């Protein structure tokens, strides 16, 4: 049980000073005036300075959810395994995936089509959180440019793969935290020989 704190409603104390009205009003106007003067003559302290946007850009925060991108493997193919987690999590249903069989025997599926409708997207970041392979990210630090046509807003696999994240732009090596990396770390602890335990085959039901 938590401690119960009893609170009694109490009016703010109003003395003769407050009742005189003028000193308190002067105080209030003083604060307003201070901000006005600061923003008129403040120099670097100004905080209402206009950003002349196309020439001068405000840097976005590190966790700004910008345009999506698909992260690549070493060979340049997307890390996506077409598990449909992102499109299921998407509240706007803006992700369209068509899966196909992968050539790599270690990977079951890969996306044949991976499209994001950037106009439908609400930039909530659910797809990034749902992805088990760290294949989709919103770390480009760029906003999506406007469109004159709704068809242009559908970004395909090539468009999404071509964008770079913040780490790549800074010239650093990206660190991926997908299921592949996780399995690679966990594998020695689960099975020392590096093999998975083989289950006996269950006889199938007749119906």
């Amino acid at each position, binding site marked *: 049980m938590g401690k119960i704190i009893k609170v009694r409603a109490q009016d703010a104390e109003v003395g003769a000073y407050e009742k005189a009205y003028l000193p308190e009003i002067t105080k209030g106007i003083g604060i307003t005036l201070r901000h006005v003067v600061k923003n008129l003559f403040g120099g670097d302290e100004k905080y*209402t300075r206009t950003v002349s*946007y196309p020439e001068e*850009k405000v840097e976005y925060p590190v966790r700004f959810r910008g345009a999506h991108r698909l992260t690549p493997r070493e060979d340049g193919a997307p890390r996506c395994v077409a598990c449909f987690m992102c499109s299921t999590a998407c509240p706007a*249903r803006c992700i369209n995936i068509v899966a196909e069989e992968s050539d790599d025997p270690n990977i079951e599926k890969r996306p044949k089509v991976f499209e994001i409708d950037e106009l*439908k*997207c609400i930039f909530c970041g659910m797809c990034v959180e749902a992805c088990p392979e760290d294949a989709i990210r919103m770390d480009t630090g760029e906003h*999506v440019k*406007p469109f004159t046509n*709704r068809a242009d*807003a559908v970004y395909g696999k090539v468009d999404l793969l071509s964008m770079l994240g913040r780490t790549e732009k800074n010239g650093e090596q990206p660190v991926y935290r997908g299921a592949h990396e996780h399995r690679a770390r966990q594998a020695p602890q689960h099975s020392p020989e590096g093999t998975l335990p083989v289950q006996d085959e269950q006889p199938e039901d007749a119906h």
Partner: protein
Amino acid sequence: MGITKAHSGSDGEVLVTRKDDVQNWIKRLLNAKGPQTAVNWSRKNSLFQYPFVTACCGMEFMSVSCSRYDIARFGAEFPRFSPRQADLLIVVGTVVQKQAPILRRVYDQMAEPKWVIAFGACASTGGFYQNYAVVDGIDNIVPVDVYIPGCPPRPEQVLDGLMMLQEKISRETATKHPVIG
């Protein structure tokens, strides 16, 4: 408007009114390349906007209009709350089925030339409202020139959209928005 005389202009179009005489004079005064350049230049730098604000995107629209990002730098700072005086209809926010006829009426009341910006995911495509109540994109009701993505869009995206529209206006020919009203 009184018809003065019909004669052929420099680029072959037929001028019929005194207004056209004046406009043609301005055109010849200011432009060397296309007949529409001077008019387009004037139009794109004085976009009187009608903000059709229905939802939360309006907050971000205020941020664009205010001093920090300041669309006055693009000549689009003047919100006219009468569609008759507006050039640019900015649809900001979700448009529901009941609001749709009103939007269409506002658009019809605007005088030519007129342009439309769909501001944000809801106005552009309906966003994540995929139900019976919400219009999935205002382009079902009115023609849209520029779609701005985002929920809500950042002020930078809006300014990008505005610049895109200005570029679009500067490329316009007489057939899209005729000078003769």
